């Protein structure tokens, strides 16, 4: 199943450049697991990085520095061959059967290994969340929206990256199903509505607090600490 909603190319550039926060990179990496289109674009962005790397003017490091480091490199190669290490072979293609209970790998450092291990917390009618363990400066949360329910109306002052993991939702930007990513800016106000049938589960990274204009949502915000 090919996702229809992709990462913004500007986000892929940042990902390639190591310029995304760990939380944003975790959501982006989760999308990449499912999306060959974005993996191809990421390779192009890394290709740009490689060309830029190669084009730099040679550093003005002294010849002495380079000789010292060169010698160190040769020593390391000797150490390796003495220890009997050989060139790494081709990647193992051992087939590990997919465990349906396993969370996507990029999310595991934050949420644990399994879906069944998640401790969902009530946040609002029809909304449960799990906050990431030890996040950095950005917010990283799992959201579970009951089928047919809407997220409280919100806008946000920064960047929001949301990957649909299960179920689907609709909002002004379209229909978002498993594998789709919403890569949003601060000029979008949107009200996602979970499709009927199964709960919609997403992972979202935000680099600024959400703002909830509605009076109820404003009451909820400090409780939920979004």
């Amino acid at each position, binding site marked *: 199943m090919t996702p229809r909603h992709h990462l913004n190319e500007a986000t892929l550039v940042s990902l*390639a450049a190591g310029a995304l926060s760990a939380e944003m990179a975790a959501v982006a990496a989760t999308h990449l697991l499912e999306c060959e289109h974005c993996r191809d674009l990421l390779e192009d962005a890394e290709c740009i990085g490689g060309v830029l790397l190669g084009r730099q003017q040679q550093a003005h490091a002294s010849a002495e520095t380079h000789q010292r480091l*060169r010698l160190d*490199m040769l020593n390391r190669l000797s150490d390796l061959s003495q220890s009997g290490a050989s060139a790494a072979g081709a990647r193992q293609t051992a087939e590990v059967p997919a465990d349906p209970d396993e969370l996507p790998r990029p999310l595991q450092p934050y949420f644990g290994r399994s879906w069944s291990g998640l401790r969902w917390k009530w946040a609002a009618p029809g909304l449960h969340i799990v906050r990431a363990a030890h996040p950095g400066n950005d917010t990283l949360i799992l959201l579970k929206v009951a089928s047919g329910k809407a997220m409280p109306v919100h806008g946000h002052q920064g960047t929001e990256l949301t990957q649909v993991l299960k179920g689907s939702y609709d909002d002004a930007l379209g229909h978002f199903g498993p594998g789709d990513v919403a890569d949003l800016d601060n000029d979008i106000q949107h009200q996602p509505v979970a499709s009927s049938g199964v709960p919609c589960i997403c992972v979202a990274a935000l680099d600024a607090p959400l703002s909830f204009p509605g009076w109820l949502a404003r009451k909820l915000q400090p409780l939920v600490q979004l």
Partner: protein
Amino acid sequence: MSKAKANSPDGTYWVDLMGAVTHQRDRESFMRIYDHFAPRVRLYLVGLGLPDAVAEELAQEALLRLWERSALYDASRGALSTWLFRIARNLHVDRLRREPNWVVLEDDSEHSDGFEDNRSPGPERLAEQAQLESRIDLLSAVQARLIRMSYFEAKTHQEIAGELDMPLGTVKSHLRRAFLQLQKGIQQNQ
């Protein structure tokens, strides 16, 4: 091999050297790669804000990984500089996050899931590389600046917006357009 060839955009030079590294474990060939790329990786890491000693250590580690994992390099998938950039970037990001369990993007040239590569392999990719180099020179001043701030300073869109006093949306659309411009230089034969 002459110095002139070493600095040429002719990617077959690096491909040939990597072949010798992988199949004969040829140190001479590896050191030619080292002499060209190690100073550049150091310069890249220093530019990201690392102290000289740390940049030196990470650059040594990056080139060592290239030696150890040389069999994983697939020239039909991309240039050596792309792979080395990926290795160096991952070392930098890993160190920033200081957590060995953080999942990082794969630094070998294969996708972890083994999907088919539909891109044109071989000589066409090398020609695309040359196209890319000339297209970088054609970026507008603003685009070039944002690309530099992304790749050489690892600044987030928000940080760039703050530093340049530019709306976030504008930063993103400049970067997006710059990427699409450059990408034409990679995908010429698609």
